[in-house]
């Protein structure tokens, strides 16, 4: 029999030796696997999760060994202080081991995966671990990796046993004794906590996976015990809610659970709402396409119209591309994440329910213990109460620990999902808006008001009323009440007589006249634009009317057949004579002019017109007639706005290429004003300062400036490029769009100024060609010096001497009347626009003017 002292020495030796072995084993393991994290990673092994804080354990163990060696070796029995060593490392030990055990607890599924027991086999990982194990086996006698991994868990539970052993063989009064007792106590507490933790985990595991079976299997498991249990729980719950029996209250837990339920509910609702919203957006985009397809069908033969065509393209792109992208990104970034997250909530919910059950069990047990009078059963009941308490507390603690974490993580996920969703939505809006932007440049739309819905409706109403009015006019069987808005104030009386269904009285006369055109027009109009009085040949009387009504500079002829492409447009045949009322459209665009054909007024494209020159009386050679009509000189007179510009820019009349036509005193009307503009008199007449052109300055658009909406065009292009590059650049594109939006807004502001019902009112004003504002001011600054220049009689030489081969009568003051055979001096063999068919000549008296070149013949000396 060994003495107590020898025994104690042996225990200490054993303690030290086992600790060394233990550390060595762990070190070998760490050496093999943890030294090379790259390799493990490449093989798909998560070292951090598999080994946890193994290195910390090794450190703690090494520390313990060192302390033990220091305090026991080479020391006498009396001074071998083991308890203190443990107390010193206890804190570190506690941290390291509780973390390790926690991690080790969750290792099973991971290990199953590496080991190939689960479907998600990772052959690389398995092989890698097997290789490591082989190396390890050479150096230690281990069985497999889990057996190594569990060593710290076993070790921590072994310390209390070893210390107890030591305690037994330590004599009372030994210095080490109090420390030992303390160490035993604390290390036991730690081991219990770890054990408790493990037990909780097992409980949680049990209840988490429980009750997931089907109803039938649950019914089959139903036995007397469960029925009683559930019955008593129900009874307890009822009585506790009625306040009849005391119930355990845990405010902290209730708060946590409430938060959890809120998170769960919020996420659930968000997921549901999001689904509904995405669906509605889908419906919206597909319906948009459906509408456009219906429009195309409605347009029938004319569905090639570019507006319809482009709108179709846009909506197709929206549905096939933009919406799809939106849907994809939502279904990639948001939906699956939320679905996964929601699936995670099942476990906690079950556990929470179970926790309440267990709490009820515990409460009823406590009640039973209290009420029990039977001493024999007291003990048994107390045990049951203790058991119920343990289970309840285990669940409670675990939930308290983990549910807040779950809530936090869920919240983070939700927030990121919201962000991802918003980003997708933003992209959708931006892309669609960008695509729509290009549609605004279509001719049909460009003339439409930009701005609020009211502006759009208003512009629409104007156009709509016009078109319905026209319809009522054209289609005699349509009664007026179909389009109640169509009776405009201006021609109300005209229509009021027609409100009668048959409108016979006005009809018959009109009809007989119209019937002349019926066959022709109907045949031609099918498939052709029906806008306004199409295809009606201009009558001679209409031409005469126009010629008398308008001044010559307002008269233009159509160079080609003009098909109306917009509302208010009118149809022109090539050669039709028109009076130009206004050289711009309501939007201020100088490309469309408001003209009068004698039978109708409306818009035509300016480039379909050329100035009209009446040469019908001239008996010119047939080949020249067409040439002449096609090439009327561009005189100062017709382009008055150009003249002052040239003049002012050069700041000297000398720079002015041609002698100015003299003022014709017999024709002082508007011409006088134009000439004032060209050559200001020293003292302009007072009334000139109040010239109506002043009122019109605002209308003028410089000819060479691009159409206003072209700015949209440019910005639209840049946005296209920018916004495609990345998600983030969408911001920029939006900014750009905003910029152009605010910049573009005022462009359309003047739509209200346009009153289509009062075109006649414009006639007076329009007779005066408009003047550019800047030009006007410049003119005022012009010094008086360049006043009127006397016409210079050109020198007539043999070189420039021509004579008139045909008589020519000047049609306006820029032209020169020629008698047959009259000699003239050629000053310039083209007009201001470089048209060589009109020559600028001077006669003997020094009068100058334009004449058709082919009316002249070179004078040859015999």
């Amino acid at each position, binding site marked *: 029999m060994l003495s107590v002292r020898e025994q104690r020495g042996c225990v200490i030796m054993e303690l030290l030796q086992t600790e060394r072995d233990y550390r060595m084993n762990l070190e070998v393991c760490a050496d093999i696997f943890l030294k090379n994290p790259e390799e493990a990673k490449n093989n798909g092994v998560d070292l951090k999760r598999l080994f946890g804080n193994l290195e910390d354990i090794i450190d703690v163990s090494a520390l313990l060994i060192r302390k033990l060696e220091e305090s026991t070796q080479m020391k006498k029995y009396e001074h071998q202080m083991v308890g203190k060593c443990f107390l010193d490392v206890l804190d570190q030990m506690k941290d390291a081991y509780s973390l390790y055990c926690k991690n080790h607890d969750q290792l099973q599924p991971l290990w199953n995966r590496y080991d190939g027991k689960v479907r998600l086999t990772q052959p690389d990982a398995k092989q890698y671990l097997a290789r490591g194990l082989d190396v390890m086996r050479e150096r230690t006698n281990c069985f497999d990796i889990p057996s190594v991994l569990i060593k710290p868990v076993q070790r921590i539970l072994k310390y209390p046993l070893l210390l107890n052993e030591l305690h037994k063989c330590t004599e009372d009064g030994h210095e080490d004794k109090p420390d030992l007792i303390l160490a035993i106590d604390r290390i036991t507490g730690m081991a219990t906590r770890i054990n408790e933790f493990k037990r909780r985990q097992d409980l949680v595991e049990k209840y988490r996976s429980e009750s997931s079976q089907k109803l039938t299997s649950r019914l089959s498991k139903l036995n007397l015990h469960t029925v009683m249990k559930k019955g008593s729980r129900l009874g307890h719950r009822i009585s506790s809610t009625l306040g009849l029996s005391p119930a355990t209250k845990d405010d902290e837990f209730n708060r946590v659970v409430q938060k959890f339920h809120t998170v769960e509910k919020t996420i659930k609702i968000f997921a549901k709402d999001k689904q509904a*919203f995405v669906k509605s957006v889908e419906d919206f985009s597909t319906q948009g396409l459906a509408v456009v397809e219906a429009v195309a069908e409605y347009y029938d033969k004319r569905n090639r119209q570019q*507006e319809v065509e482009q709108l179709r393209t846009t909506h197709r792109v929206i549905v096939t591309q933009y919406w799809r992208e939106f849907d994809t990104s939502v279904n990639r*970034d948001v939906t699956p994440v939320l679905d996964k997250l929601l699936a995670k909530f099942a476990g906690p919910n079950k556990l929470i329910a179970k926790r309440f059950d267990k709490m009820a069990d515990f409460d009823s047990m406590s009640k039973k213990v209290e009420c029990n009078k039977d001493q024999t059963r007291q003990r048994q009941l107390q045990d049951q109460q203790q058991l119920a308490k343990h289970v309840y507390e285990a669940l409670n603690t675990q939930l308290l620990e*983990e549910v807040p974490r779950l809530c936090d993580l869920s919240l983070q996920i939700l927030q990121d999902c919201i962000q991802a969703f918003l980003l997708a939505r933003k992209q959708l809006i931006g892309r669609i808006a960008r695509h*729509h932007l290009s549609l605004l440049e279509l001719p049909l*739309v460009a003339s439409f008001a*930009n701005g609020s819905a009211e502006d759009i*409706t208003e512009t629409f109403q104007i156009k709509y009323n016009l078109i319905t009015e026209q319809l009522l006019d054209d289609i005699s069987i349509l009664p007026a009440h179909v389009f109640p808005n169509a009776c405009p104030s201006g021609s109300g009386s005209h229509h009021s007589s027609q409100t009668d269904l048959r409108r016979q009285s006005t009809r018959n006369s009109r009809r007989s006249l119209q019937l002349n055109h019926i066959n022709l027009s109907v045949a031609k109009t099918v498939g052709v634009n029906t806008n306004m009085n199409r295809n009606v040949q201009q009558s001679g009387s209409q031409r005469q009317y126009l010629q008398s009504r308008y001044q010559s500079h307002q008269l233009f002829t159509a160079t080609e057949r003009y098909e109306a492409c917009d509302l208010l447009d009118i149809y022109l045949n090539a050669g039709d004579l028109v009076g130009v009322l206004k050289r711009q459209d309501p939007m201020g665009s100088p490309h469309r002019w408001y003209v009068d054909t004698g039978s109708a007024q409306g818009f035509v494209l300016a480039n379909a017109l050329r100035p009209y020159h009446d040469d019908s009386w001239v008996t010119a050679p047939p080949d020249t007639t067409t040439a002449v009509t096609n090439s009327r000189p561009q005189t100062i007179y017709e382009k008055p706005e150009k003249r002052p510009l040239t003049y002012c820019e050069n700041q000297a009349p000398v720079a002015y290429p041609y002698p100015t036509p003299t003022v014709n005193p017999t024709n002082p009307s508007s011409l006088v004003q134009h000439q004032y503009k060209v050559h200001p008199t020293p003292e302009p007449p007072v009334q000139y300062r109040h010239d109506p052109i002043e009122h019109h300055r605002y209308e003028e658009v410089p000819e060479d400036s691009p159409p206003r909406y072209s700015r949209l065009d440019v910005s639209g292009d840049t946005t296209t490029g920018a916004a495609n590059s990345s998600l983030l650049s969408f911001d920029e594109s939006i900014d750009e769009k905003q910029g152009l939006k605010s910049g573009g807004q005022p462009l359309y502001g003047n739509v209200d100024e346009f009153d289509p019902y009062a075109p006649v009112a414009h006639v007076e004003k329009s007779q005066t060609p408009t003047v550019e504002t800047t030009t006007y001011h410049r003119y005022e600054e012009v010094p008086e010096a360049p006043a009127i220049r006397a016409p210079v009689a050109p020198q007539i030489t043999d070189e420039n001497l021509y004579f008139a081969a045909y008589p020519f009568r000047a049609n306006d003051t820029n032209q020169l009347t020629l008698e047959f055979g009259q000699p003239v001096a050629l000053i310039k063999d083209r007009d201001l626009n470089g048209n060589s068919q009109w020559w600028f000549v001077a006669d003997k008296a020094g009068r100058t003017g334009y004449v058709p070149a082919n009316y002249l013949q070179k004078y040859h000396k015999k």
Partner: protein
Amino acid sequence: MSWNPLKKLSKSQSMVGSQVMNNENIESNVSALNQAEVTTKKLYKETKRLNDCILAVNRFESKMTTDLSNSVLCQEDQHLRSVVEEWHTFTIESIKNGEEFATTIHKTAIEPLKRWKMAFNEIRNGIKRYEQIKCDLNKYNHKKQKYSEKEKTSHNILKLKNVEEELKNTQQEYNIETQVLNRDIPLFIESRIDYFQPSLAALIRSEAQYWGSNVTSFNEHNSMITDKKDFATNEYCRRQSQRLDQINRLSIVSND
């Protein structure tokens, strides 16, 4: 198919050549009219449905943000709250835009199309009238034949004269009516496009307006997207799956 005058006309035997031709004209016109009416009705229906869709988008978007802002979570979490507040404001503006869009569509497309549908009815009435006159014409023709075959009593001659007078008037009326229909129906069918042009322009405009305003509104509340750089898809996916992983590791969460 009472509106279809052809059924009866085709049976009638007393057609003269020109009338036959006119009838064929009318026949083809009427079928074109039917076709046009079908497309009009379809367009009307689809446009109406589009309006419903806009309102549905509004409804669901507002539901989304309202539900979120009603959640206690929003009141507790400052960050989430600021995001949802911005989003909610945007939604309100977006709803306004949507309503404006819907109203404009209603005023500029749905209403006019409704009127146009009414116009179809008027044209049908015109055809009915024509049909009526057609019948009258047949009747008088018949009478005339009857009286001319009868014994030439003074009474009968008088009658015949009257009938001939009536016939002449009706014939004249018929001719006018035929010509009017032949002229007006194709004209009407063709006009539908001109009629719809302003609506189309308004539709394009208001749609662009709708999306443009949404862009503007979104931009004003752009702070709801907090950290844009974090949303490169890879980074985002990594973060989310990392969080899900962490959740998986909780013991209260089952992993299967």
